[in-house]
């Protein structure tokens, strides 16, 4: 045995594993996009006490937070085809389940998962905005929608950004679970490659370094965005005159 690690094999395996990077990122981005929309609706339903929607949100958030993501992936992966089959049978539709790529079930599971956590994050961010800001916008005759869009949400975003950013990073790392639905993301690719040579340790180190590198980039980006959003705490727009 030459040593603990076979470095040349690690370097060789990089291009093949890297093919999983776009898949991992696409899962994170799609889930985050839908998650923000679901989270915003859920948060507003809770804050404005919208009947029915509020109760649905409560059960949904509780279920997602109370079950492992892996289980949610399985439920989506095995459950959605069943539902489609039922529709085909009941309503005579002819959707072909085998033509739906597995990644769509992953998108559904991850979007619902992200949406539940983002509901709480966005809710607390909105509630952190001073009540006086809402009253002031109402006092000049703005509608609830205008007040949310122009005054409340921009301020909530500033407060919520560190948390939302953390959630995106966590989400990106969670995409490693998608291999369970045989989606070829970073870990999925790593498993395929290592399966040929049984050099699992090397391959997983390469995968770990890839996640780490992506997360470092994300952290930087988040820090930049935060500084930009915090510009109005410096007191003056652009330069001080």
């Amino acid at each position, binding site marked *: 045995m030459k040593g603990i690690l076979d470095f040349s094999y690690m370097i060789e395996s990089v291009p093949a594993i890297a093919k999983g990077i776009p898949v991992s990122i696409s899962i994170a981005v799609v889930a985050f996009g839908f998650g923000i929309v679901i989270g915003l609706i859920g948060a507003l339903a809770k804050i404005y006490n919208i009947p029915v929607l509020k109760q649905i949100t409560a059960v949904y958030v509780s279920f997602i937070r109370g079950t492992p993501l892996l289980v949610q992936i399985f439920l989506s992966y095995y459950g959605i085809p069943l539902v489609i089959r039922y529709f085909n049978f009941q309503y005579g539709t002819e959707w072909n389940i085998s033509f739906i790529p597995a990644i769509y079930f992953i998108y559904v599971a991850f979007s619902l998962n992200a949406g539940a956590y983002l509901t709480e994050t966005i809710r607390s961010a909105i509630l952190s905005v*001073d009540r*006086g*800001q809402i*009253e*002031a*916008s*109402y*006092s*000049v*005759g*703005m*509608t609830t929608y*205008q007040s949310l869009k*122009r*005054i409340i949400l*921009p*301020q909530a975003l*500033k407060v919520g950004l560190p948390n939302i950013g953390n959630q995106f990073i966590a989400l990106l790392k969670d995409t490693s679970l998608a291999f369970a639905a045989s989606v070829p993301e970073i870990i999925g690719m790593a498993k395929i490659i290592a399966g040929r040579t049984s050099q699992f340790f090397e391959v997983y180190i390469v995968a770990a370094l890839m996640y780490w590198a992506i997360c470092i980039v994300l952290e930087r980006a988040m820090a930049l965005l935060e500084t930009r959003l915090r510009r*109005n*705490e*410096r*007191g*003056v*727009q*652009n330069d001080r*005159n």
Partner: protein
Amino acid sequence: MIEINNLHKHFKGNYVLKGVGFEVGKGETVAIIGPSGSGKSTLLRCINLLETPSDGEIKLDELTIHAHHITKEMLLKVRRSTGMVFQNYNLFANKTAIENIAEALITVKKKTRSDAMAEAEVLLNKVGLQNRAKHYPSGLSGGEQQRVAIARALALNPKVILFDEPTSALDPELVQEVLQVIRKVAKEHVTMIIVTHELEFARDVADKVIFMDDGRIIEQNSAVEFFKNPKEERTKKFLEKFTQQSMYYI
């Protein structure tokens, strides 16, 4: 032009307003004074429906609002024809001074951004803050923030401006600059209702003074008469306390 009739407000069994009624003529300045907890601020907040009155009637020119039939449309109408200046300024934290003033012109009056900014600049000049246009609220002193807030309230050219203790949160040395601006606005015959603890200011600037205690109006009169010859016992006591207090300061 403004008429309040038999206004009631209670929060879960806590009766804050117990049938308040008064009138304000066009261009008049009315000061509302009284001890803390007497319902002054609640009364003001009921007028622009930031609080929903429990009972009673509010008339703003041709617009009549009954406490039990308030539609969304009415709510916006009332708020668009009233301006409010808050105790804690409540400037939009994510907007610069000039944007704060322009905001309602853009969203409510649907003006273009450049038109709104031009109008906002005129108002900013009026309150003497042309050199602070691009400052965010966090970069302004309390007095400056409140002057911007007054300009913001003026922007929609409202029928009445409601001041909710506009100087209570200010450092003593900043009070005068804000009162100066309010005096200036009063001279232009903008209708104003001012809840204040500054009795001297009330005497100087108000045409009419209303004294409230325990959710009711105890006495209302022209400012001169009110301070010279208070009629009710409670008013006399309140004013006495005030004059004694100011003697300590001297």
